[in-house]
């Protein structure tokens, strides 16, 4: 009970991470059911309506209740440690934000299990008119909307807390240009959250008013405009992609130099690229609306192509950091390399989809599904596993198994690519997304079969990971304060850290205060 009401940032960080992982298991299970249904032509497992609910709740859970909150959990735990602060700036606000998130999760799950014909089944984007009450009756969509409004509140509170903490609670000597990259990336994520979430709250509130109080903003028949919803939603939706990926750019940028035994290559360039991504990500929202015919396609195509440049810069930082280094292929590094490979494919196909001509062909096909899973699952989720294997020893004081970790990595990498590469093929062959069934003989059978086998393999990988965590917490192999030879300040305190984080702070004279303390002969 004490853990559920404690305002200590480390406790709240763990609450976030554990809750988010539970939601990952829920969302992943829904995906396994969908893949089972699609393994062969004809219907086997679920009804049409249930399938619609499955992909609605799967998307919502994975985006709003798993990846972003997991990053928030890491931020809660590690930002104060990385900047040398005793806690977050607003501890009560922090816990409040967590409970808004839990409330959101409960509402979204209730939306999925509402009585037959009443569950949310309008897709995670909930476009009107499909999400209007005449086409999506029942309480499920309303609970879903309320849940997402709580997600918005939670994220805004988090953004305020993170910015205040980083700007006003850094240790003496921790200048902004000495901030660890994970913390910097979370600053940009916090700003994006403050900017992008409120319009989504407006979109959702107008939707609820339309459903329950007779509002007509999105009703074309009454002179409204349903594309207003799309504008408002995607003004969150696309920065949200960066809200989901930037934290894990930060995570692997913490990991790669440590496991290459070199300083980060191009710290300033990396940060400028992050800041540029933060700015440009607010100007690309309508590339999700190319086919609506009501937006200026060249403007959004140009902005989308532009944002690929700072994203590409990061690959140079990562490769430059590894180049000539003494690379240690421990599990966190393996997941970081997996992240790079997968995200590269996700990014390149994103550039392809930035072309309206190609997007018109690929829109609403499995090509898009494969693309965003390569960024979100191949990118963010590999980043999450990298973070877990990297920081678990700091959070618990015990090591995870290196051997099982390698097994998890291998199965996830193979399983992930088996699942989603065939979906590029499906998309090219024209299979639409969100269909519960397909006819045999259209070239969809084999890719769907392979994709489902891959999904099962990923399920096994996650099960092995859970065994690894359970076994490690039972065996308690001590990690020591700094098992990896880490660079940033969190490695300069005990594992797990004491209540107010540091008994004594080292001098901060570079990007690597923990390393400087251990190797004074190399310190600046």
């Amino acid at each position, binding site marked *: 009970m004490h853990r559920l009401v404690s305002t200590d940032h480390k406790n709240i960080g763990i609450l976030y991470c554990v809750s988010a992982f539970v939601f990952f298991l829920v969302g992943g299970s829904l995906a396994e059911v969908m893949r089972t249904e699609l393994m062969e032509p004809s219907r086997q497992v679920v009804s049409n309506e249930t399938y619609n609910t499955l992909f609605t709740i799967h998307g919502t859970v994975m985006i709003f209740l798993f990846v972003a909150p997991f990053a928030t959990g890491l931020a809660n735990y590690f930002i104060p440690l990385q900047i040398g602060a005793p806690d977050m700036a607003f501890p009560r606000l922090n816990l409040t934000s967590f409970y808004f998130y839990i409330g959101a999760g409960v509402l979204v799950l209730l939306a999925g299990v509402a009585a037959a014909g009443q569950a949310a089944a309008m897709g995670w984007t909930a476009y009107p008119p499909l999400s209007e009450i005449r086409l999506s009756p029942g309480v499920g969509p309303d609970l879903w909307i309320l849940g997402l409004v*709580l997600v918005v509140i939670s994220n805004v509170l988090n953004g305020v807390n993170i910015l205040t903490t980083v700007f006003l609670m850094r240790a003496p000597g921790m*200048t*902004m240009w000495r901030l660890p990259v994970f913390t910097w990336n979370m600053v940009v994520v916090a700003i994006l959250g403050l900017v992008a979430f409120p319009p989504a709250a407006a979109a959702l509130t107008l939707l609820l008013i339309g459903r329950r109080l007779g509002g007509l903003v999105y009703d074309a028949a009454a002179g409204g405009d349903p594309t207003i919803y799309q504008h408002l939603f995607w003004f969150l939706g696309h920065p949200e992609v960066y809200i989901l990926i930037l934290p894990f750019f930060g995570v692997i940028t913490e990991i790669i130099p440590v496991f290459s035994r070199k300083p980060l290559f191009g710290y300033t360039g990396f940060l400028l690229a992050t800041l540029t991504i933060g700015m440009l990500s607010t*100007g690309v929202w309508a590339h999700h609306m190319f086919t609506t015919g009501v937006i200026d396609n060249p403007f959004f195509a140009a902005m989308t192509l532009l944002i690929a440049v700072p994203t590409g810069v990061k690959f140079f930082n990562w490769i430059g950091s590894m180049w000539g280094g003494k690379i240690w292929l421990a599990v966190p590094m393996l997941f970081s390399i997996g992240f790079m490979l997968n995200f590269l494919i996700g990014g390149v196909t994103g550039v392809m989809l930035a072309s309206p001509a190609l997007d018109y062909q690929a829109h609403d096909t499995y090509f898009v599904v494969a693309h965003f899973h390569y960024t979100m699952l191949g990118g963010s989720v590999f980043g999450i596993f990298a973070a877990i294997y990297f920081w678990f020893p700091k959070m618990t004081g015990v090591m995870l198994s290196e051997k099982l970790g390698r097994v998890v990595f291998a199965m996830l990498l193979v399983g992930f690519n088996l699942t989603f590469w065939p979906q590029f093929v499906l998309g090219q062959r024209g299979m639409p997304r969100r269909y519960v069934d397909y006819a045999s003989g259209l070239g969809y059978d084999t890719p769907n079969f392979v994709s489902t086998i891959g999904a099962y393999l990923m399920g096994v990988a996650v099960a092995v990971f859970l065994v690894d965590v359970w076994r490690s917490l039972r065996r308690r192999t001590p990690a020591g304060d700094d098992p990896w030879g880490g660079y940033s300040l969190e490695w300069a305190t005990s594992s797990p850290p004491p209540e107010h984080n540091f008994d004594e702070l080292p001098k901060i004279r570079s990007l690597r205060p923990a390393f400087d303390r251990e190797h004074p002969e190399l310190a600046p």
Partner: protein
Amino acid sequence: MRVATRYFVLLFLFASVAGIVYWFITYEAVGTILLLAFACTPAIIAVFAIRHGSMSGRRPEDDAEADPATEAGEVLGPFPAETVWPIFLVLGTIVTGASLVYGLILVPVGAALLVWAVLGFTRESRG
């Protein structure tokens, strides 16, 4: 803080210019309003930071030569250990919101929970 202030100013300029350019290219109102509203957010923070000299001035964390052992004398005050009020605040919010779906009968219950939570927060923060 100066680095942060500069970034907020930069964000304001970017969003303002993007909003104006977007309007003259597309004449589309929703996106223009979104971009200009986006410009306001960092502008508010930047103006606050610039006007408050203590924030934009030099603090130990902005001093590259500062030493935590000698310069970290600032007392941050006590940190709250535990609180149950966030749970009631969220419950109150959910119940009030659910009144739109299940009927206005829930409003008094939700409002009571919200008031109780706010009073609890206030009492707690006064020690």
